[in-house]
């Protein structure tokens, strides 16, 4: 995933509480009937069991690996096969370089991501809540949003050196920009009726903010964090390609110079798996925190 694509896509979750349940219009449903649980059939209307779908997942992965084996066996581009990569994976795991690189890359991503998100949430709220705040911050955010954070790397390296700071900074920027935009979107799209409902129940500005605006924007914030994490992960590898003492990206760069294809592939696969795991983790948190949302 290219970082530019990820930070520029603004996802809009369905507005909570705005849809009417389908049984409102059913003629023979009395007022007492609760809403029917929603089922999710695919476009053809058929429903497959979880087990079948999982089996298809596995079959697909297996077919991919088989295709890869065949392709490398054909010898067209000198691509190593899955077995060779697995062996190299075992080696770098045994000598500790994989753990060191993974740890280094993860530390950069997580620190940049956490600082970015933690700063983005209050700033997004300020943008959404205060007109003056919005007028001050918005031009900057909109301007930097169009620049891929990686494009700033040369500038950042000149000013900050080649240590950890410039890498964490670009990741921070990637995570911050995607999260600030979606937090802001979340705040401005809070249903006005919910705010009025809180007001007539005796809520002042502080209570409205903490108990209505914050929970109502949570789905937006979490989507922004997911996009930010993806962007951060994409950015770290590229940042390490330029200059770093360790890290998954740096190891690939090094292996490239020795034409060490298996090592490159080991790192690519680890990056993919870690990215996937982190995204799933955030997705689980999101599902837990926004269970209340009506999903269509």
């Amino acid at each position, binding site marked *: 995933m290219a970082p530019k694509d990820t930070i520029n896509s603004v996802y809009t979750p369905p507005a909570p509480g705005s849809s009417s*349940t389908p049984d409102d219009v059913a003629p023979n449903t009395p007022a007492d009937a609760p809403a029917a649980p929603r089922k999710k059939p695919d476009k053809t209307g058929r429903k497959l069991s979880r087990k079948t779908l999982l089996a298809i997942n596995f079959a697909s992965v297996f077919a991919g690996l088989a295709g890869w084996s065949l392709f490398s066996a054909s010898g067209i581009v000198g691509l190593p096969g899955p077995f060779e990569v697995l062996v190299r994976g075992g080696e770098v795991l045994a000598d500790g370089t994989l753990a060191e690189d993974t740890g280094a890359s993860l530390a950069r991503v997580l620190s940049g991501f956490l600082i970015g998100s933690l700063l983005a949430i209050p700033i997004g709220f300020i943008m959404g809540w205060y007109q003056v705040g919005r007028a001050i911050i918005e031009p900057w955010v909109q301007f930097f949003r169009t620049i891929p954070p990686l494009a700033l790397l040369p500038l950042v390296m000149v000013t900050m050196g080649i240590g950890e700071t410039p890498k964490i900074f670009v990741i921070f920027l990637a995570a911050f920009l995607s999260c600030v935009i979606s937090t802001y979107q979340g705040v401005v799209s809070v249903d006005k009726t919910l705010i009025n409902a809180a007001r007539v129940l005796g809520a002042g500005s502080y209570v409205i903010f903490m108990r209505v605006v914050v929970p109502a924007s949570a789905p937006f914030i979490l989507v922004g964090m997911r996009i930010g994490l993806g962007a951060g992960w994409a950015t770290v590898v590229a940042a390490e390609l330029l200059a770093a003492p360790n890290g998954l990206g740096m190891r690939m760069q090094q292996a490239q110079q020795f034409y060490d294809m298996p090592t490159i592939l080991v790192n690519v696969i680890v990056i993919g798996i870690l990215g996937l795991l982190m995204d799933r983790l955030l997705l689980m948190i999101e599902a837990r925190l926004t269970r209340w949302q*009506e999903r269509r």
Partner: protein
Amino acid sequence: MTTTTNQAMIRFENLRQEFTLTGNTFTALDGVNLDIADGEFVTVVGPSGCGKSTMLNAAAGLLDPTSGRVLVDDRPVTGPSTRTGVIFQQYALFPWLTVRKNVEFGLELKKVPAKERRVIVDHYLELVGLSSFAEALPKELSGGMKQRCAIARAYAVNPEILLMDEPFGALDALTRVHMQEQLLQTWTKERRTVMFVTHDVDESVFLASRVIVMAARPGRIFKEIKIDLPYPRTEEMRLSDEFAKLRSEVWAAVYHQPGVAEAHQ
């Protein structure tokens, strides 16, 4: 005029409300004077754009009148207050809170102790028939149940006035009739002053002791029609000749008022 006491619970005094939309000022309400007595059930009906919801929002303290004022219990309305409960057409339940937590919301803000809150919430959930759904989330409820939860939430803070803004407008015809009957049952058990805005003529007659018919451009009170049917209102009453007569009277006032014909051409 029906009055249980001499004093008006809600009094609109020469209310005028202007809005500015894209540079044009239009008058939503002009010269509105109305007294609603303590414990009275008044419905406000009229064509769209007649300012009936604006009137309700002014009474709720959700907007500032351009001129004139609204008095609740002889005190001018300056902002929202827990003395006036509001029920919105879009239910406005907090979707992240369970039914119980929604009803409890206002009580928590009033700093009612937890034990007491539980008793009050249980009481009102029982009253609207949602006891077995206390732990459900709003998304699991049908439209009618959502609105009953909103009614329980409004009642829980013990307001003197209930302002209802087309609360059953999004419901199907049958659910709507059920809700009307249940609302009157609730109101009979726990009587409050009610101002109920609707565009449904049947609903306005069935619920109220007095129907206020509004006219548009500018929004103003066009006619008051007293509904002399006794409470409790029953299904038979809904089908009676007397009801039919009152309904046609309200209908005529709503749909054959000056200005309506050309506005809909």
